[in-house]
């Protein structure tokens, strides 16, 4: 537990340093592409006094000055499986973004989608000493949450207080200074495989960069693709990437559930490749240009050259009708959406007051996906694109960049996490001396 506090705080410290220097890089390590954005912080654009989000959705504080994407290599299902290749891909992206920004970046905030994210809900209750909730007591109630056995080889990457309750009043955003007898907290904790995180950290260090933060891409894309009222009322963001599809459920502007399905656009491509007997690159091209999930009568007559480079003239001049292509793609898309449906059902999504579902990510651009998704996931489905941020090039505004843009917002306005609160004395490993120092700090 203490270990977690320290590593996460070290990252926070690094992030603060990066903000002071004014330049930080955002790295989205996906299965099909690696995106790198370079942000410059101007220092302005803090949230206004009453906590409301001002003009430009509170993102006037930073600007994207460099953006680059490269084909991802050595990443499968959102996890690194060939480190050398991934490192080279990261180098490519970072170099191109640096060149565009004309500035050297040393700090990187990264996100990844795989590594089996698992959500836990924690809660805790504390009898207050006085009548008024103090910051110390908030920290204490957070620290007294019972951490479940999440297993060896797993690591916590997000642990956010989601809800505070004072006596019988629930839904408090900030209980400090309020009157009451007992303080209760609900927390959402996300764990991932430690190996995947360590591999990513190692890759980034090998590129001479410092890791200033790490996030789950489910969280990041929900941050950017959901609009404010969806985040408030409850919505699920489904980020359909290349190797994995990540799900995040938001409620009252907090992520309350995240999960990932290890299926994505790459599987559709490989289905096409296998079904039609064409190379993967051809299959990818056919999928993006002609793909769809709803066959109509016209599609039977719409013939597609599928090509090939075997040298056999007959083989290389094959054509298929678009209806056949849709027949290959649709079962796989349905499978992905069914899998998402199961995960959402398991999470109890149907009990939320609003059941908006937002599809984003590169694979959400398949034509007719929203129609199919509304048949499987429910009526309230829309396609989401990331928010607009300052200076983002046009080429990086598509749904495939939802998690990169979300990470920009995360870098500019991070939510309070568990480790941002003061660790109470009982958790301190130090003995009497540490306690004395702490007593002095509290009382003087």
């Amino acid at each position, binding site marked *: 537990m203490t270990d977690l506090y320290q590593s996460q705080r070290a990252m926070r410290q690094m992030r603060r340093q990066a903000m002071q220097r004014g330049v930080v890089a955002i790295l989205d390590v996906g299965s099909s592409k690696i995106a790198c954005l370079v942000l410059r912080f101007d220092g302005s654009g803090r949230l206004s006094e009453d906590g409301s989000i001002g003009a430009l959705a509170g993102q006037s504080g930073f600007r994207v000055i460099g953006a680059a994407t*490269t084909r991802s290599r050595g990443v499968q299902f959102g996890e690194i499986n060939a480190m050398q290749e991934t490192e*080279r*891909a990261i*180098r*490519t992206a970072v*170099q191109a973004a640096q060149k565009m920004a*004309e500035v*050297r970046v040393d700090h990187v905030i990264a996100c990844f989608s795989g590594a089996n994210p698992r959500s836990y809900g924690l809660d805790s209750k504390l009898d207050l000493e006085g009548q008024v909730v103090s910051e110390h007591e908030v920290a204490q109630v957070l620290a007294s949450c019972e951490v479940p056995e999440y297993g060896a080889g797993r690591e916590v990457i997000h642990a956010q207080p989601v809800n505070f309750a004072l006596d019988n009043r629930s839904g408090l955003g900030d209980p400090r200074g309020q009157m009451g007898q007992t303080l209760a907290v609900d927390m959402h904790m996300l764990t991932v495989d430690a190996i995947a995180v360590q591999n990513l950290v190692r890759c980034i260090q090998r*590129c*001479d960069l410092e890791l200033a933060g790490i996030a789950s891409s489910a969280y990041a894309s929900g941050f950017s693709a959901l609009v404010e009222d969806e985040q408030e009322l409850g919505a699920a963001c489904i980020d359909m990437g290349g190797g994995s599809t990540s799900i995040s459920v938001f409620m009252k502007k907090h992520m309350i559930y995240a999960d990932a399905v290890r299926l994505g656009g790459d599987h559709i491509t490989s289905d096409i490749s296998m079904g039609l007997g064409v190379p993967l690159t051809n299959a990818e091209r056919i999928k993006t240009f002609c793909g769809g999930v709803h066959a109509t009568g016209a599609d039977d007559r719409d013939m597609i050259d599928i090509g090939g480079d075997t040298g056999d003239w007959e083989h290389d001049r094959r054509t298929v009708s678009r209806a056949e292509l849709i027949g290959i793609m649709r079962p796989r898309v349905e499978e992905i959406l069914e899998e998402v449906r199961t995960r959402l059902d398991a999470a109890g999504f149907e009990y939320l007051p609003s059941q908006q579902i937002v599809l984003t990510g590169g694979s959400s651009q398949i034509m007719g996906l929203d129609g199919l998704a509304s048949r499987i996931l429910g009526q309230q489905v829309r396609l989401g694109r990331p928010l607009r941020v300052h200076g983002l090039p046009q080429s990086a505004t598509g749904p495939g960049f939802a998690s990169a843009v979300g990470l920009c917002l995360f870098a500019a306005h991070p939510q309070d996490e568990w480790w941002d609160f003061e660790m109470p004395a009982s958790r301190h490993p130090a003995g009497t001396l540490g306690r004395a120092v702490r007593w002095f700090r509290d009382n003087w």
Partner: protein
Amino acid sequence: MQPLKGRFRRRSGGGEGRADPAPSRLKYRLQRWMLTPGIRFGLRIGVPFCLIFAAGSAYLADETRRAALQGLVSDARAAIEERPEFMVNVMAVDGAGASVAQDIREVVPADFPVSSFDLDLERIRDVITGLDPVKTARVRIRPGGILQVDVEERVPVLIWRSREGLALLDENGIHVAELGRRNLHPNLPLIAGKGADQHAAQALRLFAAAKPLGPRLRGLVRVGERRWDVVLDRKQRIMLPAEQPQRALERVLAVSEVQDLLERDVAAVDMRLAGRPTVRMTENSVENWWRIRQLNGGGQ
């Protein structure tokens, strides 16, 4: 198993396989290094500066090159300074008499023709105003290469006779010139005595007051560096007080007007004490007076 290396070939490696877009580690580091602000600044400014500095020092390390460079600079400077546009050929002196003009020409430290860059006008002016007969001087270089000196001479108003001889003074008592003989300036009033030149203005006022005496007035004598004596012919003296000598003189003149005091055989009129003016008669007249009193019957 497929070879671990060579899934992506380098672009230069041949046509087989796909080109690897990734930069090599060295290239990546080099680019990052070049993007570092300090390094960029150093390369853009520091390196050229150091190169130029090193080249300059290496060139100037040789004595003969340094001398040649200095010669070149001084030659260029001389070539510009000695252009006819900058040469001064003549000095014109205005507002001074012939002898003073001669003096000025002698003292000005310049041998014409000379470049105007070498003339120190401030110093020339100081030298000229250092001459006694010159009150003020203005020095400038007129177009056409003429050094124009405008001089205002001091006007002598007094002659001062001291142990060193005769001197001409202006109205402030400042020395103008030596005077060989008195009769070169017969109409200027004469003063004498130590420290008389310090009070030339007062002397001039006394001379103005003594106008009625006409040609009888010989001059003023400063006595004890304190007060004036008016010296008339027939060795008569009017001794004036240190305070308000002009009023005392006017009183004596008024008395003389009415009583013909100064026409009589009086040796001195002593006005040093304002409450007790005293008349001293000559020895001759005193004896005469005594004889007349005896002739008149011993006073009875």
